């Protein structure tokens, strides 16, 4: 399944579900009113949240086109960790905790399903050739942070990978960069946890091709208290629950560049 030849005018895209089935359901209900022709998920279905099995049938029944993220690649291939490359013992401690929980609570059939997911999508959006990937077109677990990714680097990616528009996720923070010659890079954000901005909502993205490319980030409010309660029942760490309830990231901070780190609380 790689969607070559499919042309759309308006789509929705999001990354990082992180087992947040409550936000996923809210998103699928919200997007119904948004007049989109297709929905794309850029991967990382598990981690962080409770009851990892719950998101899969929502995605399938919602008709979402799902891509493999590094987390799904790890769980699907029975790897030892999530491939985020943490070096800090504290980050590793929390990453391992949620990875082991997610691995132990994901049914074999879904592991198999995740293993077989595609790793990129190519579509036409209006006149644009659009390439979707998880981290970057060249590497599934590469972080393309806004403050550490030069415009000329993104421009080169569009040339090397023959795309007018590149969509990625993986970092957890949405952003949009208009590049010279009508090229574009969009980080579509994640619906699994807040964007480290002190707000409890999460984000997804609408892309429309009319005159030019229109990129709209949609703040999505969902019952985060219900999620926090489930996480508590599942004995997931208080640090993760704090993020859901406050909108500030509390773990895995080592990968944040200076600017993004400074905008957060921890």
């Amino acid at each position: 399944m790689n969607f070559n030849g499919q042309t759309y005018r308006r789509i929705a895209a999001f990354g990082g579900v992180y087992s947040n089935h409550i936000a996923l359901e809210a998103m699928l209900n919200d997007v119904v009113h948004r007049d989109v022709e297709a929905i794309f998920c850029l991967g990382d279905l598990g981690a962080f949240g409770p009851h990892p099995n719950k998101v899969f049938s929502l995605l399938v029944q919602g008709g979402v086109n799902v891509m493999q993220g590094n987390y799904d690649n790890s769980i699907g291939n029975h790897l030892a960790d999530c491939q985020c490359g943490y070096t800090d013992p504290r980050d590793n401690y929390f990453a391992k905790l949620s990875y082991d929980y997610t691995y132990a609570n994901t049914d074999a059939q879904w592991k198999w399903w995740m293993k077989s997911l595609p790793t990129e999508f190519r579509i036409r959006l209006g006149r644009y050739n659009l390439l979707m990937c998880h981290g970057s077109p060249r590497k599934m677990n590469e972080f393309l942070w806004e403050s550490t990714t030069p415009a000329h680097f993104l421009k080169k990616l569009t040339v090397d990978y023959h795309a007018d528009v590149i969509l990625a996720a993986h970092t957890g923070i949405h952003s949009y960069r208009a590049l010279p010659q009508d090229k574009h890079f969009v980080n579509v954000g994640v619906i699994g946890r807040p964007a480290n901005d002190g707000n409890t909502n999460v984000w997804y993205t609408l892309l429309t091709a009319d005159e030019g490319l229109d990129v709209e980030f949609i703040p999505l409010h969902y019952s985060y208290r219900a999620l926090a309660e489930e996480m508590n029942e599942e004995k997931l760490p208080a640090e993760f629950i704090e993020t859901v309830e406050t909108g500030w990231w509390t773990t895995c901070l080592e990968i944040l560049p200076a600017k993004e780190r400074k905008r957060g609380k921890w």
Partner: protein
Amino acid sequence: MTGENVNTVQHPTLELSSLDNLWFQVAGTLCNLKCNHCFISCSPTNDKFGMLSLSTVERTLEESVKYGVKEYYYTGGEPFMNAEIIPMLSATLRYGPATVLTNAILISDDMTEQLADIEASSSYSLEIRVSLDGFTPEMNDPIRGHNTFKRTVDGIRRLVKVGFLPIITAVKTWDDDRDLEVIGGFLQQMLDIGYSRPRLKLIPTLRIGAEPQRTHGYLEGEEITLDMMDGYDASQLICSNSRIMTDKGLYVCPILIDADDAKLGETLEDGLKPYELKHRACYTCYMSGAICSNASSSGEKLFAEKLSAHQ
């Protein structure tokens, strides 16, 4: 040059997969300190490599655009010995993110203000990595020199005051079983000086330059052979994605500038060729992986308790 290979073992040749990281040896081998583990033996008098000029930096930044360079790194010696470092960083931040490796001693209050200004006016990150090799003077000063602990910590304090979150970089001169104690000590020391969310990065020692006198040089068999590349993720090696510009031209990596064959030419284009990994220092790179990225530890009060409860 120590660690030279004299026998006939065959070594792998590594292609530059993409020029992601561009380093500037901005102060050459000149440094205000003379640390005894310095892997290129920098000192106030070692002028084997000299100051890089602003015009070389500007020309190289411009050349870097077509290769899609992702990050720019400034090293020395001590970058803040170069009188043009501020305009250089300012120019860099128009192209992309910059990281400076410093001992922070020469960064005055006046300079921190200027740094904060250029950082604020760019959408790219300016990372300041400060080298400190112990969380007490007793641990640090024997390696980095008399009173250097206090002077570096004062520098960190000045940076924190204007809003920087410097990455404290420690060369790991202690045994693995002391890791938690040492990391905890560092974090506490930073909290004590008002650095409320300290970032810490540990790097392995490189047994070249001045370091062999402190411990020992490389042992027989510590080199990269052809078969060792089977199944190895070569992207971990700096030379697979980086090059360094010095006042003497373009070199393969920041580690080997003392080696005769490490000079690849004058421009970035000259640096696109592959390189044979025949030096003993290559073995350390091979064993320890990505030692030059910015990933760092985060400080949190409950961390030590949590880890010990976990074990």
